[in-house]
């Protein structure tokens, strides 16, 4: 083979490698008849995945030929890529969270306004509407379910040992002390994933300083060096000796497991967490009490209950088509009904419906108790990482809380660190 033909061959080869890549880059998106809606789902766990599939199948059955095409992505991956996802080629409808986490993207113009849908929605409380509303007063989210956080425990363990659900912090500590004497880990505790301990922070904060303070702290208006924040950490430090050691190396699944195995007595969790780790036969043994009172002025007014729901992506090409937009909004309207939530909750009983038109009679006793907890709440918070800016919660608060857990004594240094970083992040806009 001569040198020249070798060169020629190489050139052709190089062209053959690059050309297809260039061609596919020009490919067009799916052509739409306006009846097929794509839906980005972060429900990658088997139970919710199946429950959602049931719900969408029910929608397809009652609509005239409309189809829902679901693209499921691993939960954490979905979360981490959300901002690129929404700017790139998002699905028409996608699952996301209420509160600040949603408002952040609404402000950036990445969400479709669904205020006209909201005029027809029935059965949603004012608190739900507030959590679905952006800073501009328009609604962007269609809520679907929520799950309250509380102190979970095993009913049988409490009955066997004669433990009483504590009402106040002092009773809580006394109970924890008793459990320690009984050779239990009083409070199952985990923060390897970075977020589970946030629930405890939120509750101590809201019980000590009230919901309004929580809101302004999360909005960056109050300094983290404020004495009220130090008080939160001080209270938490008082509880730490009763918490499972080595929390930063434990996932929530492992913590829930130790609760299930009766190695730990209690745990601050959301409704789905113990539910996912208890075998079917022991589901009925899960019980909870609201996080105890710290300051009687705030009592147990606030309940942490993150809301999940559906939103429309502004950048979706398909939604430029009027018919497709109509279809997508029709799907949201259907999902907003109590009946749609019933279908979902039938196979995923670890959440509760947001609509007061949902059928509570089929609920488990635990779910009924959760409904009671939420409906009795004066305020509903989302979660630390849903109530504040995502860049603040993920880059500052996760390491900060983990640092507090492994080195709880330097609260001054900790809050100073947080405050300094908070200032630069909140000043960024």
């Amino acid at each position, binding site marked *: 083979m001569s040198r*020249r033909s070798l*060169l*020629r061959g*190489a*050139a052709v080869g*190089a062209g053959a490698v*690059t050309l297809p890549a260039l061609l596919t880059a020009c490919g067009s998106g799916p052509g739409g008849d306006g009846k097929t809606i794509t839906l980005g789902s972060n429900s990658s766990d088997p139970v919710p995945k199946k429950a959602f599939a049931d719900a969408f199948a029910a929608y397809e059955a009652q609509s005239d030929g409309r189809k829902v095409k679901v693209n499921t992505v691993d939960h954490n991956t979905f*979360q*981490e*890529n*959300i*901002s*690129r996802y929404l*700017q790139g080629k998002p699905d028409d409808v996608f699952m996301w969270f209420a509160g600040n986490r949603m408002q952040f993207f609404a402000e*950036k113009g*990445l969400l479709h306004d669904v205020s006209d849908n909201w005029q027809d929605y029935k059965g949603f409380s004012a608190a739900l509407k507030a959590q679905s509303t952006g800073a501009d007063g328009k609604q962007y989210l269609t809520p679907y379910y929520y799950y309250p956080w509380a102190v979970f425990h095993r009913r049988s363990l409490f009955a066997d040992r004669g433990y009483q659900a504590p009402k106040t912090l002092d009773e809580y500590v006394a109970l924890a002390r008793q459990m320690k004497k009984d050779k239990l880990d009083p409070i199952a505790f985990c923060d*390897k994933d*970075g977020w589970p301990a946030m629930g405890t922070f939120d509750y101590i904060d809201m019980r000590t300083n009230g919901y309004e303070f929580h809101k302004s702290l999360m909005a960056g208006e109050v300094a983290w060096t404020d004495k009220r924040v130090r008080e939160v950490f001080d209270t938490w430090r008082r509880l730490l000796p009763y918490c499972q*050691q*080595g*929390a*930063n*190396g*434990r996932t929530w699944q*492992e913590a829930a*497991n*130790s609760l299930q195995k009766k190695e730990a007595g209690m745990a601050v969790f959301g409704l789905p967490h113990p539910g996912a780790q208890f075998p079917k036969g022991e589901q009925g043994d899960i019980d909870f009490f609201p996080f105890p009172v710290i300051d009687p002025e705030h009592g147990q007014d606030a309940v942490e209950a993150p809301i999940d729901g559906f939103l429309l992506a502004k950048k979706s090409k398909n939604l430029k088509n009027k018919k497709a937009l109509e279809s997508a909004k029709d799907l949201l309207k259907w999902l907003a009904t109590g009946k749609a939530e019933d279908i979902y909750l039938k196979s995923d009983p670890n959440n509760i419906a947001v609509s007061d038109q949902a059928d509570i009679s089929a609920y488990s006793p635990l779910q009924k108790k959760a409904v009671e907890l939420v409906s009795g709440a004066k305020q509903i918070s989302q979660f630390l990482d849903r109530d504040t800016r*995502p*860049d603040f919660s*993920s*880059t500052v608060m*996760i*390491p900060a809380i*983990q*640092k507090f857990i*492994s080195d709880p004594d330097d609260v001054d240094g900790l809050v100073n*660190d947080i405050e*300094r*970083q908070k200032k*630069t*992040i909140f000043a*960024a*806009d």
Partner: protein
Amino acid sequence: MSFIPARRTGRRVARRFTGRDLAVLGVLLGIPVLLDVAIVWGPTLASVVLSFTGWDGIGDIKWVGTQNYRNLFTNYPQFWPAARHNLLWLAFLGLVAAPFGLLLAVLIDRGVRFSRFYQSTLYMPVVLSLAVVGFIAQLVFSRDQGALNAVIGDTGSPTDWLGDPDLNIWMVLLAAAWRHTGYVMILYLAGLKAVDPSLKEAAAIDGAGEAQTFFRIVLPTLRPVNVIVGVITVIESLRAFDIVYAVNHGRNGLELLSVLVTDNIIGEASRIGFGSAIAVVLLAVSLGFVATYLVQELRGERNR
């Protein structure tokens, strides 16, 4: 150096390449150069530029000067630990894992019994990605359900191998070294096979002991392999990421520069300007090593 007049050289080139040759060469060189610029240099320069902005990935790009860097050095608690950990990684792989790999290679090369078995066993982790190694490390080191605590019967107050920020970096380094050692061993095994046995015989005749033969004769002839191992070790330490990310997202004692970049850019945070600044620091550190290596190589080339 022989003396060739510049004019003659030019003429010779002109005679040997026709216009068509030049065109073909132009295309063939041009495509890789374009790709290199587009895929490597473009993003690199973009990172440098973006590191001076406060871009969040969505809105307008706003210039903030050196604020990101000031922030990084004074106001980001994870930064210095991350930089330290990267250096520790380098030291551990370079001073512990790589020499250990060499030792194993020498032992196997001398023909211990079952050497094929050892060879394949030690090489096995290399075929696993570091992310998988990370998952295996979790199965072994997990506090409540890990194999290690079960084996040593540490149940009263078990050691939190992966959650304790003073301990976990060493556990992860151990896991990373597990893989690196096999890698290094294979490279040295290939090198040792190429060492001329007559050199060793000559040394033996001259009365050199085992150790002397190794350090005076064998190791110097392994120089090319040493360089490769050095380069690989530096690359592995600076790009270390997957294993800590698999273990705990590189937090709480496992910070690395690469993880901080990811946390700020890929995650929900979208602090692209700030993350780029960290990336630039990582680039500067890497360039330091690359420059040192190139200088050494070029000098060696001249001396040869």
